[in-house]
């Protein structure tokens, strides 16, 4: 999954999430491994509920309260196995409760996934002075004996008798009494471990939801509708969108539909095939995390696994040649598909480094073997002459040829239509040389190339 998050640019938006505590971050680390269908449903519902029931005005104060809470999961886990907690652990618990109570005040009771009752009874164990502060020490109020010992101690201090052996005895007695009190407090706290852990996890979820909602709003992500197909309207890649916006360049959002049968997409250079398929993969990956997605409308299917062969696959980390790495990756996807798993396979120009004849054969074979399986298959290619009877064939509209005279190196991006159209013949538009010309490649060179093209 980690590799997928990187390859699809999912990391770009996910890394922008700002958590107020380590708890929310840890919760998200688990989600990042990928969710089951049921968990995805739950996450989407939870997010929707958050937007419905959470007023924006309270978010700042909740974030501030959460930011004071340390990750005390370990402390809470170990309460039961410990005979006695030390002062620092008790402070952690008190501090946690204090700021949880500040969060609690703001919670909507209807939001039962994160709502919890005010833990005042637990808090009062650690607040015998009833002064409602987050700080802690072993208070005199815990026992009369402790109070007496401390008064004696003060007398010695006042009279500068702290080197006296009696004074050392008093300190010893104080420590013994403190230990008894700590044991008693630990016993009392043990009765509440379930509640403490429940509050802890609810705050972790809340922290995560706040961070998530901020990203959703920043990029106008949309709630995906879970169905059994992929039908997307106006999808976009947030990373590329950000770059285009900062460069004041046009960004064309496109529609896409993936049916049961394999789909082949063709298109000339610079037609955005790589970006479009990457964005489709991104959307599938985000769904797998129960996230909202970058589109204006998204009907999506849940896949058990996602395979994405990225178009900008660089040198791979296993030290294999690029072809070897690629074919092994495809094989992994192939075997899982053959076994009947519901997976999504997106291959951006597979076998591109090999010769077109064999490359075409590899693509044909994939489609022939997998069209009847449960998997969804999307392939982009440059290779002409693909027959692939069992595949739906589409292409990127590409260069606006009617406006060719206006196009130059700087504005070319504005004269490419990135949308997909169905094209049963899977024609590869022969635009490479035209584009080279627009990009200002040497005239003689272009002329000769055209001569060879015939």
């Amino acid at each position, binding site marked *: 999954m980690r590799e997928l998050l990187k390859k699809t640019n999912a990391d770009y938006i996910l890394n922008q999430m700002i958590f107020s505590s*380590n708890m929310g971050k840890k919760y998200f680390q688990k989600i990042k491994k990928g969710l089951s269908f049921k968990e995805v449903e739950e996450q989407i519902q939870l997010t929707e509920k958050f937007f419905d029931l959470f007023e924006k005005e309270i978010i700042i104060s909740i974030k501030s309260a959460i930011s004071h809470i*340390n*990750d005390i999961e370990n402390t809470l886990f170990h309460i039961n196995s410990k005979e006695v907690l*030390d*002062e*620092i652990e008790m*402070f*952690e618990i008190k*501090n946690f409760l204090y700021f949880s109570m500040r969060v609690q005040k703001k919670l909507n009771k209807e939001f039962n996934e994160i709502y919890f009752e005010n833990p005042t009874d637990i808090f009062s164990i650690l607040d015998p002075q009833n002064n409602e502060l*987050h*700080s*802690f*020490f*072993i208070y005199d109020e815990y026992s009369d004996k402790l109070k007496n010992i*401390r008064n004696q*101690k*003060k007398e010695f*201090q006042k009279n500068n008798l*702290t080197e006296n052996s009696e004074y050392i005895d008093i*300190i010893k007695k104080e420590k013994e009494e403190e230990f008894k009190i700590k044991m008693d407090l630990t016993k009392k706290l043990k009765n509440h471990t379930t509640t403490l852990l429940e509050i802890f996890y609810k705050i972790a979820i809340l922290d995560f939801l706040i961070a998530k909602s901020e990203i959703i709003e920043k990029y106008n992500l949309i709630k995906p509708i879970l169905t059994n197909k992929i039908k997307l309207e106006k999808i976009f890649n947030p990373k590329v969108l950000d770059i285009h916006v900062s460069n004041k360049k046009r960004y064309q959002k496109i529609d896409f539909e993936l049916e049961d049968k394999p789909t082949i997409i063709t298109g000339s250079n610079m037609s955005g095939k790589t970006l479009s398929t990457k964005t489709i993969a991104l959307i599938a990956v985000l769904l797998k995390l129960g996230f909202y997605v970058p589109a204006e409308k998204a009907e999506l299917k849940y896949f058990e696994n996602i395979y994405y062969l990225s178009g900008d696959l660089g040198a791979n980390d296993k030290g294999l040649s690029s072809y070897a790495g690629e074919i092994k990756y495809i094989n992994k996807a192939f075997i899982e598909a053959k076994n009947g798993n519901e997976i999504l396979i997106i291959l951006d120009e597979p076998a591109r480094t090999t010769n077109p004849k064999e490359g075409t054969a590899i693509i044909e074979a994939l489609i022939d073997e997998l069209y009847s399986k449960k998997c969804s298959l999307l392939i982009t290619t440059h290779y002409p002459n693909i027959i692939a009877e069992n595949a739906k064939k589409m292409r990127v509209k590409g260069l606006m040829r009617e406006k060719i005279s206006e196009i130059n190196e700087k504005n070319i991006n504005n004269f490419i239509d990135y949308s997909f159209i169905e094209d049963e013949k899977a024609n590869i538009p022969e635009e490479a040389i035209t584009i080279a010309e627009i990009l200002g490649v040497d005239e003689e060179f272009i002329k000769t190339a055209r001569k060879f093209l015939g």
Partner: protein
Amino acid sequence: MNFIDSLINFETLSVVGLEKNTGKTETMNYIISHLYDNVKLGITSIGVDGETSDIVTKTKKPEITVYENMYFATTEKHFKLKKINAEIFYLSRRETPLGRILIAKSNEKGRILLSGPSTSVWLKDIMKEMNKIDKMKIIVDGALSRVSSSSPSITESVILSTGAALSLSAKNIIDKTVYKIKLMKLEEVNDALFDDLIDLDDGVYSVDEKVKKMPFKTLLSIKNIDIDKYGYNYYITGVLNNNFVKKILTKKHMEKYTIIVKDYTKIFLDKSIFEKFTKLGGKIKVLQKIDLKAVTYNPISPEGFTIESRPIMEKIKKKTGMTIIDVKKDLIL
């Protein structure tokens, strides 16, 4: 105005030692005992083990005396060793090798072991957290004076502790101490120049008329460069070393040259080179000057030698005009 009144006027103060074992802890205890009655005090330390010297010389790790209602920030490990009652207010998320940093308020007088955050940036954070709990004046048990933790960008005031640990020779002690005081008292640049220089990226700059970055990053690569074509006024964001000043010393008319550094902790010059340059009229200035409140003197070396304090203190006082205190005898000159 008596000494304590003049001392009280600070927000953050670090106590730095000119050498190991010059009596930093005694100085801390001395200042705290004189101030705690008059102001709300907080103390902390820089470094995991503020007193590595104690490991070296195997002397006991010194304890600092705190008083009722005083705040202190120390590490978990040292907090757990305390014998006093203290109310915990804050626990850091980050950890030092001795555990997280706690901020607590003492409920009674007693001794504690002081340790603290391991970086100066973190130290600043901890001081901020302390002030969130209560407005207080903070004293930092600093490291050696060369280390950037005692830079004016961390604490605006400083007390320098010196003593017999420096040398067996009284003259040496005086020379080293006076030199350090001179560095701490170097003149600040004017406000306009400060504004021009404070936010510059790391590098070496010529600041004759316009501020111009010189084509080398550090002074290590200066050997083969003719600096004359860059003018006579330089600003160095990093450390100022002997080579650069030696290079200038090969020129004539020292009085034309001014070298600006961030603060005194950036100066790594041998005393002889510093003296030669400044005596010939060369100037060294700082962007930020630290407010040196006083110098303390510890007459006992860790090996047990005692060097009579009064004559030494008098000479230092005469040469620098600084208030100087023998914290053992409570003698203030």
